[in-house]
């Protein structure tokens, strides 16, 4: 029974999404109720699955040889699936309120809910082929979401997103072929599946292919120089940018790289090679590059998108360290960053929804009009900076621990980059906060008098995430212990 849940949680949201245009809803409220109930139900199913934790795998389709579509729940899958299942209902709730100002909601929720299933497919994939299949599918179901507003800008952005993602997937595909050729099996096995006898003297080619597929999957994780699709995709409605472009889609890229590094190639094979140096250098550079661009950016959502680019490379930096501690750091940042960034995006969305303001310099004094939103935004900003007591500190601590432990010169430099990026984060986030609360002399309070905090549908998710950020910041021992037990 519990094994079949593996398949159910993936297919159920797709079915729910597919039924939206078909079912005869008499009003918006009914659709909201249906959608919310189903999404919550699916999240409960995912959590049941995690608690039951079935060890066996479920094969649903078999191609030639050992190529199968197979699902299994292992530790890493648990982390990602649990994260997605926790965030999705809240994001849906938030989207109900946000989408009141946008048109053709049904199409939006159709694809939005389907994405839930596809993302879970990536989390629960047992082998690289299954993961690749859902990875491609994810691109296809999210393109319409980026295109949603149908403005010229949105269409251009979605086209770019499509080309970038497909191009990246092509490189990842090459990596997959080599795993199939030179591996004992295509299943994900901690420590890697490569057969050294089959490889013989072709080690360098395999390393080159590793770098290719790292960059290929890295397109979704917005690694420099393949990052420009992400800020552009910010034209999508905020629930999409917050959940998909800060968590589900981009973290699928990071998740795939973690799988590739630790479960297909194996860290023993890669550690100490030139391939590791290359990916370490690229991720360290992206960490600083993303932050630097964020400071320059004045559009609020795009600024947060650049911040995401930088933070995703934190995760990839953990992956590139190729050590158990690096994996713990990467996974903890994968989870914590999701909460921090979705919070700041939702705050940005709430500001845009309530005031129609999109640029940083328009936010003067809004802290007085929307105190709750701005306080929560401040908290997420502090967490992203890595102030101790909040979640960001813990994940950065784990990453830096791994970086120093590696003893590599690039490890030390990478840790330095983390801290430079923390300072940059302070610059681009705190300037917003200070604008909000300290508008300067000559500021007229009446300018913001007409604005107010959003209603409970937007505030509830924010409060919930805030509690998470605080809780993980203060009492993370058990969670980090859990991550360490996976290895």
């Amino acid at each position: 029974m519990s094994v079949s849940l593996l398949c159910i949680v993936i297919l159920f949201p797709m079915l729910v999404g597919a039924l939206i245009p078909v079912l005869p809803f008499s009003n918006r409220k009914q659709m909201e109720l249906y959608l919310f109930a189903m999404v919550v139900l699916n999240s409960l199913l995912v959590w049941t699955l995690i608690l039951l934790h079935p060890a066996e795998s479920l094969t649903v389709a078999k191609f030639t040889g050992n190529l199968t579509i197979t699902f299994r729940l292992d530790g890493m899958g648990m982390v990602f699936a649990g994260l997605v299942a926790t965030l999705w209902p809240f994001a849906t709730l938030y989207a109900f309120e946000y989408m009141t100002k946008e048109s053709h909601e049904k199409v939006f929720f159709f694809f939005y809910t389907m994405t839930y299933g596809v993302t879970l497919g990536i989390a629960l994939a047992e082998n690289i082929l299954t993961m690749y299949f859902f990875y491609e599918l994810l691109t296809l179901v999210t393109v319409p979401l980026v295109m949603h507003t149908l403005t010229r800008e949105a269409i251009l952005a979605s086209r770019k997103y499509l080309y970038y993602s497909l191009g990246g997937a092509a490189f990842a595909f090459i990596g997959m072929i080599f795993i199939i050729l030179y591996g004992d099996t295509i299943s994900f096995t901690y420590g890697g599946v490569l057969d050294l006898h089959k490889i013989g003297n072709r080690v360098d080619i395999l390393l080159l292919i590793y770098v290719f597929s790292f960059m290929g999957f890295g397109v979704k994780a917005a690694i420099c120089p393949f990052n420009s699709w992400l800020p552009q995709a910010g034209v999508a409605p905020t629930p999409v940018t917050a959940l998909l472009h800060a968590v589900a889609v981009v973290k699928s890229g990071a998740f795939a790289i973690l799988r590739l590094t630790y479960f297909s190639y194996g860290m023993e094979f890669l550690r100490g090679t030139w391939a590791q140096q290359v990916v370490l250098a690229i991720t360290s550079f992206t960490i600083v590059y993303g932050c630097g661009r964020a400071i320059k950016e004045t559009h609020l959502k795009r600024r947060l998108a650049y911040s995401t680019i930088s933070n995703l490379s934190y995760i990839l930096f953990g992956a590139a360290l190729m050590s158990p501690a690096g994996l713990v750091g990467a996974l903890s940042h994968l989870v914590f960053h999701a909460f921090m960034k979705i919070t700041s995006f939702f705050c940005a969305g709430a500001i845009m929804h309530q005031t129609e303001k999109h640029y940083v310099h328009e936010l003067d004094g809004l802290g007085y009009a929307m105190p709750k939103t701005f306080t929560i935004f401040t908290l997420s900003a502090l967490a992203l900076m890595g102030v101790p007591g909040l979640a960001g500190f813990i994940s950065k601590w784990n990453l830096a621990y791994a970086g120093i432990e590696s003893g590599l010169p690039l490890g030390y430099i990478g840790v330095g980059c983390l801290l430079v990026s923390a300072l940059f984060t302070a610059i681009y986030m705190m300037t917003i906060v200070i604008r909000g609360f300290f508008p300067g002399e000559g500021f007229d309070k009446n300018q913001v008098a007409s604005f107010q905090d959003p209603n409970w549908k937007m505030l509830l998710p924010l409060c919930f995430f805030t509690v998470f950020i605080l809780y993980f910041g203060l009492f993370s021992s058990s969670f980090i212990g859990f991550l360490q037990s996976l290895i």
Partner: protein
Amino acid sequence: MITLLTMLGIPFFFGLFLCCNRNITNRKTLLSIVSLGFVATAVVTVFSWTSLLEQEITVFWLTQNLPLMFHLDRIGLLFSILALVVFLCAGFFSFSYMEHEKKERRYYGFYFLVLAILQGLCFAGNMVTYYLFFELLTLSSLPLVMQENTKEAIMAGLKYLFYSLCGAYFCLFGFYILFQNESTISFLWGGNLLADSIVAHPVLLQVAATCMIFGFSVKAGMFPMHGWLPTAHPVAPAPASAALSAVIVKAGVLGIIRVIYYQFGAFFLQGTKVQTLFLSLSLITVFMGSLLAYGEPVLKKRLAYSTVSQVSYILFGLFLLQGTAFTGSMLHVLGHGFMKASLFLCAGAIIHLTGKTRVEEFTGLGKEMPILLWCFTISSLGLIGIPPTGGFLSKWYLAIGALDSEIPFFSYVGPVVLLLSALLTAGYLLPITVKGFLPGAEFDTEKITKKEPNLWMLLPVLILTVLSVLMGILPNGLLGFLGSVFR
């Protein structure tokens, strides 16, 4: 445990209550709440000094290996006393000073938060706890700097924030390295480095020590990272500048003590390039600060530059890694705290009553407010180092310590620079007294009216001045106490 939590919780609660409660509009209500808060804080803090001394309390674990731990040792106690005394004095001074200012509620709210965090800082028992409170201190004192809400204040606040965070991240980098090379992160007199690590990579550890000391020295306003101090301290309201200049810079000093004597150990750093580097930097700062103060016409800025110089006296004493100099430094921590707070409060009283900020406008001030100017004079004499004030004693110990240390070059140049700086101190402080009491023949004494400030303002200044003098007259208890610290 309960005592500790109450001690930190009470000012924290008052701070949070005042920050969040928008209903307090009546000034009388506000002030009675604030007074209640001060009294309650004073009572519990004094009580916990006696009951918690030399006790180790682990509250909870932030994550594995990172306990939030408190341990009130004698050094912490010294700083804690300084913080409480100065904050109470400046707090009661604010009652009168802040009566025409806006946003008083927020001011007191953050004032309490800063006090709570400072106490936490003094009680911190390991590096991660210290770092936590150190970052919170920066963030919570930021609104005090920006209280005036002018463009100048906001820019100063940003400068303060980014300098401080830059320093904090340097510390963190050093701490990341240190963490993997020490037996425990708890503070332990003599250091707790692993013997293996000292042999294996001494240079790496020296780099770590440099980073950490440099990071904390930003808060202490040491060259080359002193730039924020003369900008940020004077723009705050006078009582807040007093707190900033007398106490909050000492957070950097305490940090450096913890790093040198309780993490790396004086023995490890003795005779290294690290010591030479910081001895030179502190001496440069001593001289440069005095010189800049000498050329500065605005009183509050002049006092801020004076802080730059005087705090580096303390740092110089610490970097000598020698018992007598250490005692001198600790005496100067207290002495400078009292004197600088008193001077800033005097400057505040002058601004409040006459609106004069520049030194050349102070001619004849002694006729208008003799008691205040006498306090100013006595504190100035202390800062210059004229017996029988506390300042003389601390400088005496610093000079003797330098001569005894037998470090080539610095043991002679050090005292000379201290003396030169004392001369300059006389040069920038005494003319105010001289012109104030002896305005010259052409000064029209007819127009003079008595403008002595009221008791709320005068009493705190008097208390601080008397304390600084008492330190010089009756130093034996204090010296015995300090003797038991340096082993």
